[in-house]
């Protein structure tokens, strides 16, 4: 039985209907098999920069910027031997022959995409297993396959793990995961929010709809993990994921299309309000002496979802027309300011997106902060305030940038984004989540 009455139509990233009248819970991270798979992949999939390890060993440059250890170098042909390393690594990681371990050789042996078997994660409580198992197995593989002796193994460790454990994280290492070490999480349940938008944009190959979708999936799944999407608050997050992240009822796409050629952010606000009135989500409450009509709603959660979809559309129009990511915090503040003044109803996440925009504008534009939107994620003290409704828009903005920044997503992401774009469910989440939602439709 469905907990909530809401049914939605599913659309793809090009505004084509995929299925109708699907219960919104079919998109829940608690139910949707594709979302669960995506979250598993985030934990299981790890990127290895084999070329980086080879270079680090050859030069003695390990453990962080400008740490060059004199007299310590090792010439190992790792890239050339990537296939055999991959085989050994797989053997090392595999628990049983039929498990889901996988090691793919990419870019002629420069990179490896490793999928650590779920069985290893299931035998522990921390998501770091994906990273630790890969890094450790890789050290074993290199030491064994290349007969590294007792005096040199520490350099292999440093080339793989970086400066860890003198540092909390693998500083300067060559194994990377989407997730950061737990100490770097802002609070309980924040792990999935600690993924920079640069990674998201690259994983989804800069398809703005999929970037927003993947980001929304991670953010809203985090809301369940943080304890936010539960009880009185669950439906708000489910609707937010559906309408903002996954283009339910084609709302995002329709509003973008309506304003694609000449629309301003203000026009997007108008389109959003129009649609909310047409769909019966909001209605006039009273007409004031000035002639101004204040609106009300019987379903604030749905209004929030519409507003969130409008916000993403507004980002796509503003950042899309300028082909620039830096505009997004301005959108977060002023889309909401305009929407609130247009209707008298609260903006997205009831002021929290506007607040996040205020700080993000500051931090992305001034001496106190630092970084273009590509470095932002939901785990930062600037951005954590909105519970899942801001970062998908940042991801879309980053995807739409034509190259206006010096620290590009490619520079920030390193190998991770590119490598993980090999995983279809991560690259095209809209498609797989829609399919999975339809597959479990009857179950709900």
């Amino acid at each position: 039985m469905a907990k909530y009455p809401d049914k939605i139509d599913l659309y793809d990233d090009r505004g084509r209907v995929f299925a109708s009248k699907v219960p919104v819970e079919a998109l829940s991270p608690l139910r949707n098999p594709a979302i669960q798979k995506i979250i598993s992949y985030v934990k299981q999939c790890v990127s290895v920069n084999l070329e980086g390890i080879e270079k680090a060993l050859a030069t003695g440059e390990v453990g962080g910027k400008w740490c060059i250890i004199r007299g310590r170098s090792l010439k190992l042909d790792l890239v050339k031997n990537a296939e055999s390393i991959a085989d050994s690594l797989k053997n090392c990681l595999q628990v049983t022959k039929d498990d889901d371990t996988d090691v793919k050789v990419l870019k002629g042996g420069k990179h490896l995409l490793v999928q650590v078997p779920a069985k290893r994660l299931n035998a522990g409580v921390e998501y770091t297993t994906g990273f630790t198992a890969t890094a450790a197995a890789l050290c074993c593989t290199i030491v064994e396959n290349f007969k590294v002796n007792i005096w040199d193994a520490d350099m292999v460790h440093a080339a793989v793990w970086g400066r860890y454990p003198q540092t909390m994280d693998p500083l300067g290492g060559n194994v990377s995961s989407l997730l950061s070490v737990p100490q770097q999480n802002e609070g309980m349940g924040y792990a999935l929010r600690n993924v920079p938008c640069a990674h998201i944009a690259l994983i989804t190959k800069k398809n703005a709809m999929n970037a927003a979708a993947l980001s929304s999936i991670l953010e809203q799944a985090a809301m369940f993990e943080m304890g936010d999407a539960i009880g009185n608050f669950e439906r708000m997050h489910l609707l937010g994921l559906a309408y903002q992240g996954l283009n339910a009822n084609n709302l995002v796409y329709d509003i973008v299309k309506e304003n694609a050629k000449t629309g301003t952010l203000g026009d997007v606000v108008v389109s959003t309000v129009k649609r909310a009135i047409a769909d019966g989500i909001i209605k006039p409450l009273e007409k004031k002496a000035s002639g101004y009509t204040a609106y009300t709603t019987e379903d604030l959660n749905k209004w929030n979802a519409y507003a969130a979809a409008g916000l993403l559309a507004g980002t796509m129009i503003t950042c899309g027309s300028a082909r620039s990511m830096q505009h997004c915090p301005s959108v977060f503040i002023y889309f909401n300011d305009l929407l609130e003044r247009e209707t008298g109803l609260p903006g997205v996440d009831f002021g929290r997106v506007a607040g996040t925009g205020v700080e993000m504008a500051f931090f992305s534009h001034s001496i106190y902060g630092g970084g273009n939107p590509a470095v932002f994620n939901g785990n930062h003290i600037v951005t954590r305030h909105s519970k899942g409704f801001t970062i998908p828009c940042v991801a879309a903005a980053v995807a739409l940038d034509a190259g206006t920044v010096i620290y590009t997503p490619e520079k920030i992401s390193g190998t991770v984004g590119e490598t993980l774009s090999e995983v279809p469910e991560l690259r095209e989440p809209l498609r797989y989540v829609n399919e999975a939602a339809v597959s479990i439709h009857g179950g709900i």
Partner: protein
Amino acid sequence: MATYKPQYYPGSTKIAKNRKKYMDPSYKLKKLRTISDDDLVKLMGHRVPGEAYKSVHPPLEEMGEPACPIRELVEPTPGAKAGDRIRYIQFTDSVYFTPLTPYMRAWMGHNRYRGVDIGVLSGRVPLEARERDLEKVAKDLVETEIFDPARCGIRGATVHGHALRLDENGMMFDALRRFVFDKKTGEVVYVKDQIGVPLDKPISVGKPLKEEELREMTSEYRVDGVPFREDKEMIEFIQRLHMLRTEAGFDPNKVKGI
């Protein structure tokens, strides 16, 4: 549905109406002065008049774009198409009856212009856009009724002045003295560009508007003009918004029909 018309802004007073007017993109801003394209370019100081636009990336057509349905739908601005750098114009607006307040610049700007990045602080408002798009927007911002030569400043840095008393000529304070009052002509003249680099020739931005004109045009509530206290509709609007946000934070399901 048919009856819905954008309303932009609530409020019952003249100030609220002025705000609504400037925010409504169908209202054509009155042109009050002419600043030549070259002078505007000099005031902003990003390029020399006549110089080609510098680019931050190749033109979109040359570089090709990733397969993205949104990029296919959304028309890039001319500056984005060409790969222009993103540059800025920044304004300081005095608290003394200027046409626009800082937030008004953002609300109006996002209603009227496409692809702009506007930030708001208490004493300055940067607007960033692709350079050729910026120049178009800047023209509106300087030539029309929303700019007063004496009480609005075009300032890149050291913007200090919005809250200070006015000088003996009614000019807003500017530590860099980018603009001066020419007593002979009665006009305000810029002798430095917005970041404070001296200009080769002064640029006049015209005569300051009269106090009584400003009081009519302003979007600033003031106790010595139209006090906010008198706009009960506006006060109640904000009180309700705050109450709705607060109640929604407590439990969004309970906010129904209020």
